[in-house]
């Protein structure tokens, strides 16, 4: 696990819970790695398999989706559908010989600022341990 | 019921009102017939007829009519089994004719286990006609002396037609109707699945008797002695349509290590005793595959010997 490797991680956050929790983490001045880039969507239900694959294809080392707690989704059940899609992408990645742990789904409420930072740190750490995405290694070499 | 169909030993035993006793023996997994002959030797004289299985559980073995022909040579009357899985109607008719020509007089028409249970799950199955239609086909060949398409047969096969019945499979309440259907289709004798749940079987036999099936057809109760607790549990869980009551397994376990086989035989013998008295049961079909050497002892201890010789 080389220390100079700076992973690029994309996070799809739902507007009502995860994005709000990210803002709260900011107003609480918590800390998480700067290579997490957040994209806001109205509901995680909007995140499609193609968005996750496209991110990996573009060169992301890690992608995660953060939605509301199960049962609390602003749109009733968007988060439950997306968890299934994330499982599908994990299966596809392992078929392609890429570590499925690079893609993940998390659930948290808009009041969980500390939890958002914890997730970001946890994913940053996990991707740093996994090293750069195989797609990037070939490019680099 | 009483006009002679095939004149086979089994038919005569049953027709004469004796308590029939049939065994079972699996053909070899190759062309070497020594082991087959050994088993037949064990059975000779101890049973009225021996079922020769046809690719049981879809595992490839020597074909049933070949093994049956060898049995005839060895002087043991075979019950030639045919399943609907492996042959279409042309092959079935030609095999029946061939078997008859080789001196085989009894046959059993079975659906057969699905090929995914066997050692060639990739195979294509046939199921051109089902067991009911096979019974009727052989009956038509024997009585109307015609092929399925109505053309005459030169030398019709006088087979004593048998079928299987599983009194414990679901839907239980329909099982006796299906038995009736088989009998109407032309079955002369029936061998049931091996029985462990005695009360359910009593209930089944009561229904069969009430429907008057026992006048039209001989019903043989299936018995398979349990060799070990493991076997009992395997039968209970894995074999579809098998109903092994837990108290039986407990009794087996109670017998203690090393004595399972003995206890299994004791149970089998008790069952046979009861079947002798049970109304509607015309005999017992002992399935002791790989235990052929024990058949003599079981027959002896169940008082089935000597076998009636009705020439």
């Amino acid at each position, binding site marked *: 696990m080389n220390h100079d490797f700076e992973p690029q991680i994309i996070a799809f956050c739902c507007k009502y819970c995860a994005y709000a929790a990210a803002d709260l983490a900011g107003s609480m001045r918590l800390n998480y790695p700067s290579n997490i880039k957040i994209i806001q969507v109205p509901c995680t239900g909007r995140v499609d398999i193609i968005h996750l694959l496209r991110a990996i294809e573009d060169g992301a080392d890690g992608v995660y989706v953060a939605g509301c707690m199960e049962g609390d989704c602003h749109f009733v059940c*968007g988060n439950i559908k997306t968890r299934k899609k994330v499982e599908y992408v994990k299966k596809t990645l392992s078929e392609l010989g890429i570590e499925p742990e690079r893609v993940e789904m998390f659930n948290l409420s808009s*009041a969980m600022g500390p939890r958002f930072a914890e997730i970001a740190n946890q994913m940053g750490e996990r991707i740093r341990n996994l090293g750069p995405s195989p797609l990037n290694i070939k490019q680099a070499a | 019921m009483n006009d002679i169909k095939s004149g086979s030993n089994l038919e005569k035993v049953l027709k004469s009102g004796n308590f029939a006793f049939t065994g079972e023996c699996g053909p070899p997994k190759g062309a070497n017939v020594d082991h087959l002959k050994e088993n037949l030797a064990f059975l000779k004289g101890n049973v009225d007829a021996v079922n020769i299985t046809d690719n049981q559980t879809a595992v490839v073995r020597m074909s049933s009519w070949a093994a049956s022909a060898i049995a005839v040579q060895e002087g043991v009357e075979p019950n030639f089994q045919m399943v609907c899985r492996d042959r279409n109607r042309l092959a079935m008719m030609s095999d029946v004719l061939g078997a008859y020509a080789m001196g085989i007089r009894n046959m059993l028409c079975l659906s057969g286990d699905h090929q995914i249970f066997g050692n060639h799950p990739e195979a294509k199955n046939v199921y051109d006609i089902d067991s009911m239609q096979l019974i009727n086909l052989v009956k038509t060949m024997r009585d109307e002396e015609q092929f399925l398409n109505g053309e005459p047969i030169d030398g019709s096969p006088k087979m004593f037609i048998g079928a299987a019945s599983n009194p414990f499979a679901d839907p239980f309440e329909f099982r006796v109707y299906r038995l009736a259907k088989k009998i109407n289709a032309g079955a002369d004798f029936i061998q049931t699945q091996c029985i462990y749940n005695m009360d359910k079987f009593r209930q089944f036999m009561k229904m069969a008797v009430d429907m008057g099936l026992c006048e039209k057809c001989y019903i043989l109760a299936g018995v398979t002695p349990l060799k070990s607790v493991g076997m009992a549990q395997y039968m209970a869980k894995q074999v579809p349509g098998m109903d092994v009551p837990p108290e039986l397994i407990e009794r087996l376990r109670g017998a203690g290590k090393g004595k399972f086989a003995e206890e299994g035989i004791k149970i089998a013998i008790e069952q046979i005793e009861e079947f002798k008295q049970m109304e509607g049961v015309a005999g017992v079909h002992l399935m002791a595959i790989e235990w052929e050497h024990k058949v003599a002892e079981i027959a002896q201890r169940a008082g089935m010997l000597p076998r009636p010789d009705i020439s």
Partner: protein
Amino acid sequence: MSTKGTNNKVGSVMVVGAGVAGIQASLDMANAGYYVHLVDSSSSVGGLMAQLDKTFPTNDCAMCVISPFLVEVGRHLNINIIPNSELESLEGEAGAFTAKLKNNPRYIDSVKCTACGQCRQVCPVTAVNEFDCRLDLRKATFIKFPQAVPLSYTIDKNVCIGCGMCEKACLAGAISYSDQARFSEIKVGAVVLAMGNELFDPSLFDTYAYSRHPNVVTSLEFERILSASGPYKGHLMRPYDREVPQKIAWLQCIGSRDINHADHSYCSSVCCMYSIKQSMIAKEHAETPLDAAIFYMDMRTHGKEFERYRERAEKGSGVRFIRSRVHTVEPLDDGGLKLKYIPESGEVLEEVFDMVVLAAGFATSKDTKALAQRLGINLNAHSYAQTSDLTPVSTSREGVFVCGTFQSPKDIPQSVMEASAAAAGATQNLSEQRWSLTLTKELPAEKNFSEEEPKIGVFVCNCGINIGGVADVPAVREYAKTLPNVIHAEDNLFTCSQDTQENIKKIILEKGINRVVVASCSPRTHEPLFQETIREIGLNPYLFEMANIRDQNTWVHMKTPQRATDKAKDLVRMAVAKAALLESLPQVTLDVTQAVLVVGGGVAGLEAALGVARQGFVAFLVERSNELGGMALGLNATWQGEPVLPYVMQLIEDAKKNERIKIFLETEVGHVTGTIGNFTTTLKSANNPLDTKVINHGAAILATGGKEYKPHEYFYGKNPKILTHFDLDAAVRNNDKALKDSKIAVFIQCVGSRTEERAYCSRVCCIHSIKSALILKKLNPEMQIFIIYRDIRTYGLREDLYKEARQQGIRFIRYNKDNPPVIDSDNGQELKLTVKDHILQRPIEMNPDLVVLAAAILPNENKTLFEHFKVPANSDGFLVEAHAKLRPVDFASEGLFLAGIAHYPKSIDESIAQAKAAVSRAMRIVSKNTIAVDSVIASVNPDRCAACLTCVRTCPYNVPRVGEEGYAIIEPSDCHGCGCCVSECPGKAITLKHFTDDQINAKTDALFYIEASC
């Protein structure tokens, strides 16, 4: 009602107190055409609810629920928030009041202040932080909570030493020490009082060692301990030594139902529920298993879903409920607290707890009493606003209305209902002044940029030092200039400040910019503000994208400024990539039929219809039976003794007289189609289904009411001496001799309620039984009266009835669910009742001449009706509201409202309040002639649609359906814009406007410097 010259009426209303009730009333009135002055004595709106962590019974986080409302009231064009102010006097009469206000100084200009918090960091003076009760400190310059509205700091002059440090630290130049108290006068048409209550201060009791030991906390303090924004960031610790408590005790009725110490004889009606909630949430928070015990006299969980909530706490989370009043709390030296108490079984027990939470009740504050005095509002004995049950939100002074806990202790749903009711009451006589004072923004026509290629303007914000202090903003600005389609990039100190907004508009017009990207804080709080700004110069609001480089960048990467700068560049590049693909979305508006359909002719239906008519709109009142009045016809008097029948007769007469109310008796609702603002309903006459009538309306209020449960227990119907409540009321009405002569009368509570198949409390039977017992006592003072109960739930001020009943010698015997009282009447005449007395712990027998069963209240059977409106009913058959706390009279589907017993059993005053509330909620729609529909909605491209039904099956609101033409159709006004169908559609036929696939992919591509590939 003085109708002296309607022209001098004023089309605005003043709301005093900006708690959840004040906010709800203001929003209702502002959205129905009245200008609202929202006055609050503290520095921010939000009131008590802002301090809560979670709310019962749904355990939602309070702040997540209320902050959208705070933002809405903060930004509303027609709501003028006046913080730090008190109402000095109120002259004039209903329709034309003159209110004198005292505006206390804040010393910080709330327009300039961006709440960056620098002044707080440098301020040398600390003081007790009232928001977190006494658990932590704040500085002299403070903000009540991070989501405060107005979002600005204030200086607390009594502790400030005037050292001037904050002025030095403030980059926005927002500090103005010269701020003075000012007086202002405002003309208003009506006033709504919603000052709320304060919590009782238990330092009065020395037996609970509250003032002597930090581990004895009030319930509000415990709420702050649980809260993620509280002193311990949501970790459950006890104040003394920050240990995680393993045993916590809740003591109920502290400062309520208490006449020797606190002289508050009433019940505060919410403490039982919030203690249960706190015990469950504490168990969730605790790292190690937590033993929670609640010491109570009567467990009062009388609200909707409350009984099940209590079951879940007891059975699911293992909370211990101990029926006993704790005598003393003795602090031990290791921080533990020894409790001495006597449970029902009688022996004296001692138990050591790590923490004790005192469930403090409500009390009217001194300033509220003084204000009521100044305004001439009569207060009752408990110093709550005196109101009649039949006009529950009107005070003793004409034109002044009341809602929330200042009227009497109540929970949030009840307060919100009363707030909407007060809104309806206040605006009822001002309807001719509707829209007279409200402001509307004059907007120029939108420019069409569809032909032009994108010309993007990027505005990078420093936000004082929040961004500029960490990231290199000029570098980001220069970088933005290099991005494709960017024709202008600049940075400024505060992009959201008024002056910067002005010059942004100037530059956009000068340079012909047609897409705007602002890199600053969170779109959640500031997107509407910037969208409005660019709309003011003809740019469609959706030609706008934000990059959050503060909350999600500089604030969380303070220690790595270089990386924060690089990330800011990445985020700007991504935003610009999406901006290039943005299209302008038309503002879809539908016209509104200004009429309301009211289903159900009971008191709730009548009040709703009259409310709508008095607001000036047509109301169709549909009643299934052939007479109006509903259940109320069988009720003699309200809990305060006001006769009900004359009131109901008057209601019916007014309804018949009012020409705006069209009454349809013996009529059922047939087919319902259409959406908010445009419903079309066919009405079928009950006895001749062919006779139908089609009506158009903009909103509908379901007030289908309920009925009394006819018990099959206790030999009801087999013996004339056994009655239900309505039978008793009837007997009293025609003063049946048998009542006077009976020597022993017995009331049995919870008949049919709180059982397996009906696990809810019917809320009003305890009150009705006790009130009837008092009437019987008056009829024949020698009569021995027993009330056999499980929990006496005389909530709120109704506790006086219970006090008086005990004083009159009525005896109360408690039974529990497993061994209820047994009645056997062997020969049909002589009744024998045996019940185990809870004190003697032995069964006692009696031969009552009269047995009254407190039968449950059931909802009326309306399965088909509910299906027509596609509205859900819960397992007990009561209608399910959109949100238990903040939308208690709305349905989830827009434009439909509910009121009365159909929502949940309630007393007549609560039904009246809910009916008026439903009217106020309906006014939000019906008072306008057009209604705007959200533009971020899904739309189907017909030729790509394979009619595979995926969208029909996926949509949580089952909006899409496949039409006759063979492709999916999504009704714009129904779509909520979540996008679930978009991501599941196998043919990619559906796109979600403003969040299309290309726009999302453009962001990921941009992050990795990939040009817009296919």
